[in-house]
C-alpha cells in the first residue's frame, strides 16, 4: 500500500473525521483542544475508560464482521441491527429461563445468538434465492419487524414477574461472561470477537468455501460457471452473516446487560456498516476500525458532559465518513485509470 492509497483510504478517513470533529466543536462554540481533550480523556483516560471503549468496540465488531462476510459474498446486509437483536433475544430468553453452569452457558447462549441471528439473516437469504427479493430492502424491513417481534415477546408471552419494562428476567450470575478488567463491563466477548476476526480472515484466504464466497461476490457469473451454487451461497452467506451479528447480540446479553432488553442496541448494526467500510472489508482492519469507532462512541458522552459538544456530532461524522469512503473508491479507480 503506497502513501497515496493509505491516505485515500483508512488514514484519510481518520484525518477527515478529526477535522470534521474540530469543525463541529467550533460550531458548538468549544475550542477543539478542550473538546478533543474531553473526548480522549473520556475514551482512553484510565483503565475504566479504556474498558468502556472496548465494550463499545466489541459491540460494533460482531455486526461489522457479519456485514463484512455478506459484502464479500456480494450481498448487502443492512439488517445487522435486527439480527443482533434477535440473537440477543434468543440468548436472553433461554438464559433467563434455564439455569446453567458457566461453561455450558458460555457455549449454549452464544449458540442461541448464532441461531437467532442466523435465522433472521437466513430469511433474507431465502427470499433472495427463492423469489429474487432484493436483500437490501428485505434486511432493512426485517430490522423493524425484529424490534416489534422482540418487544411483543418480552412484554407478552415471555413476560417475567421479575422484569421491569421491555426486558426478560435477569440471567443467573453463573451464566454471565467472565470479566476481563475488574470492576468494568468488559467481558471475554472481546476475545471471542477478535478470534472470530482471525478465523474469518483464514476462511476468506485459505479455504475453498472462502474462495467460492469471494468469487460469488466479485465475479458471480464466473463463480456460477465454475460450479458455485449461487442460490445456496446466498442463503449460506446471509445466514452466517446474521449469525455473527447474532452472537454479538448474545454477548451483550450475557456480558453487559445480563438480561435481554429491547433497547440493547443504540444502532450498533448501522454504525457497523461504517466500521466494515472503514476497515476495507478486511477482518483485521475491521478490528482497528471498531476500536476507532469505540473511542468515538465512548468518548462522545464524555465530550458532551464536560465540553458541552452535543454527542450527536458523532453521528454526523460517521455519516460523512461513510459517504466519503464510498466516494473515494470512485476517485481511486479514476486515478488508477489515468495512471495506468
Amino acid at each position, binding site marked *: 500500500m503506497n502513501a497515496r492509497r493509505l491516505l485515500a483510504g483508512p488514514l484519510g478517513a481518520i484525518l477527515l473525521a478529526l477535522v470534521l470533529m474540530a469543525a463541529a466543536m467550533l*460550531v458548538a462554540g468549544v475550542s477543539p483542544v478542550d473538546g478533543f481533550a474531553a473526548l480522549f480523556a473520556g475514551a482512553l483516560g484510565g483503565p475504566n475508560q479504556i474498558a468502556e471503549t472496548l465494550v463499545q468496540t466489541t459491540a460494533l465488531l460482531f455486526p461489522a464482521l457479519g456485514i463484512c462476510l455478506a459484502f464479500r459474498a456480494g450481498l*448487502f446486509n443492512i439488517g445487522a441491527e435486527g439480527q443482533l437483536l434477535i440473537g440477543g433475544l434468543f440468548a436472553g430468553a433461554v438464559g433467563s429461563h434455564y439455569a446453567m453452569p458457566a461453561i455450558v452457558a458460555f457455549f449454549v447462549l452464544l449458540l442461541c445468538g448464532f441461531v437467532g441471528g442466523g435465522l433472521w439473516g437466513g430469511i433474507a437469504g431465502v427470499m433472495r434465492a427463492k423469489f429474487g427479493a432484493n436483500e437490501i*430492502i428485505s434486511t432493512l*424491513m426485517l430490522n423493524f*419487524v425484529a424490534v416489534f417481534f422482540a418487544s411483543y415477546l418480552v412484554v407478552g408471552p415471555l413476560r417475567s414477574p421479575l422484569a421491569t419494562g421491555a426486558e426478560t428476567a435477569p440471567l443467573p450470575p453463573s451464566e454471565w461472561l467472565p470479566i476481563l478488567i475488574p470492576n468494568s463491563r468488559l467481558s471475554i466477548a472481546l476475545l471471542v470477537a477478535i478470534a472470530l476476526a482471525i478465523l474469518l480472515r483464514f476462511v476468506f484466504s485459505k479455504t475453498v468455501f472462502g474462495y467460492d464466497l469471494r468469487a460469488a461476490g466479485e465475479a458471480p457469473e464466473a463463480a456460477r460457471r465454475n460450479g458455485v451454487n449461487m442460490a445456496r451461497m446466498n442463503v449460506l452467506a446471509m445466514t452466517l452473516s446474521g449469525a455473527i451479528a447474532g452472537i454479538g447480540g448474545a454477548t451483550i446479553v450475557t456480558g453487559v446487560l445480563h438480561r435481554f432488553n429491547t433497547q440493547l442496541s443504540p444502532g450498533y448494526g448501522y454504525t457497523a456498516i461504517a466500521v466494515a467500510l472503514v476497515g476495507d472489508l478486511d477482518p483485521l482492519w475491521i478490528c482497528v476500525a471498531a476500536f476507532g469507532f469505540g473511542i468515538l462512541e465512548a468518548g462522545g458522552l464524555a465530550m458532551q458532559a464536560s465540553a458541552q459538544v452535543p454527542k450527536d456530532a458523532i453521528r454526523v461524522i460517521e*455519516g460523512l465518513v461513510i459517504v466519503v469512503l*464510498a466516494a473515494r*473508491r470512485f476517485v481511486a479507480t479514476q486515478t488508477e485509470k489515468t495512471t495506468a
Partner: protein
Amino acid sequence: MNDAASVVMLIVSLTLIKATPLIYAALAGVISERSGVINIGLEGMMVAGAFTAVAVSGPTGSVVLGIIAGIIAGALFGLFLGILATKFRVDQIVAGTGINLIAIGGAAFALVLVFGQPGASKEVPSLEGASWILIALAFASAAGLHGLLYYTPWGLRVRACGENPHAVAAAGLNPLRTRIIAVTIGGALAGLGGAYLSVGELNLYSDGMVAGRGFIALAAVIFGRWTPFGATGAAIFFGLFEALQFALQRSGIPNEAMQALPYIAALVALAGLTGRVRAPAADGVPY
C-alpha cells in the same frame, strides 16, 4: 346512527392525518426509484424537513417560510444523494445510510445550538387549522406526479432512466442529469412530508419524531408497485392501521403486530406473494 357516522368520520380524518407524511415520502421514493436511484435516505430527508421547518418558523414567526425552508432542506439532501449516486458512483445504499446518519445526527446537534435544549424544540408557529391544505396537497401531488411520469416527455425520460439509462444516453440525453433532478424533486417532497409532521400536525420538533416513516414509505413504494397512485394507496392503508392502532389494541390484536404490518406487507410483496412485483430494471444500478 349519528354516533356510528361520527366514529367513521373520526377514523377517516385520523387516517388522512397519519397517511399524509407517508404519501409525500412515498411519492419521493417513487420518483427517485423510477429514475433508477434507491432512496434509503428518505428518513433523513424527512428529518431535515421537519427540523428546518421548525428552526425557521420559530425565529421568523412565519410558518410558510418554515415549510418552504423544510422543502429546500429536503431538496438539498436529495441533490446530495443524486450527485453522490451519479457523478461519484457511490453505492446508493451506502450514500442513503450516510445521509440518514448526517440528517438525524445533524438535527439533534443543531437542535441544541438553535433552541439551547436537547430532545425537543420550543413550540413554534404552526399551520394549526390550516394543516388540511397540506393534506389536500399530498393528494394533488400524487396526481401531479402521475401526470408528470406518464404524460410528459420528461416523465418518459425519468422512467427510461430507471429501466435502461444507456438507451437514454444513446438518444443523446443525459441520464445522470435526469436522475439528479428526479432525486432532488424527491428530496423536496420528503422534506415537505417532514415539515407536515413538525409544523402541520404538531408545532415543534423532537428527536425521533419521524419515527421510521421514511422506511415505512419505502415499504409503501414496494407495496404500491412503484407507481404514484399505488404508493399513495399503500400509504393510506398504512395510515389507516396507524389510526386504528388504539381502537384495535382493545380487541386483543397485539399493538406490535399492527406496527410491524407495513414492513411485513412490504416483505410479502417483495417475495412476490401478492402477484408479480417488479422494480425498475436499473433501480439501484449506477450509470
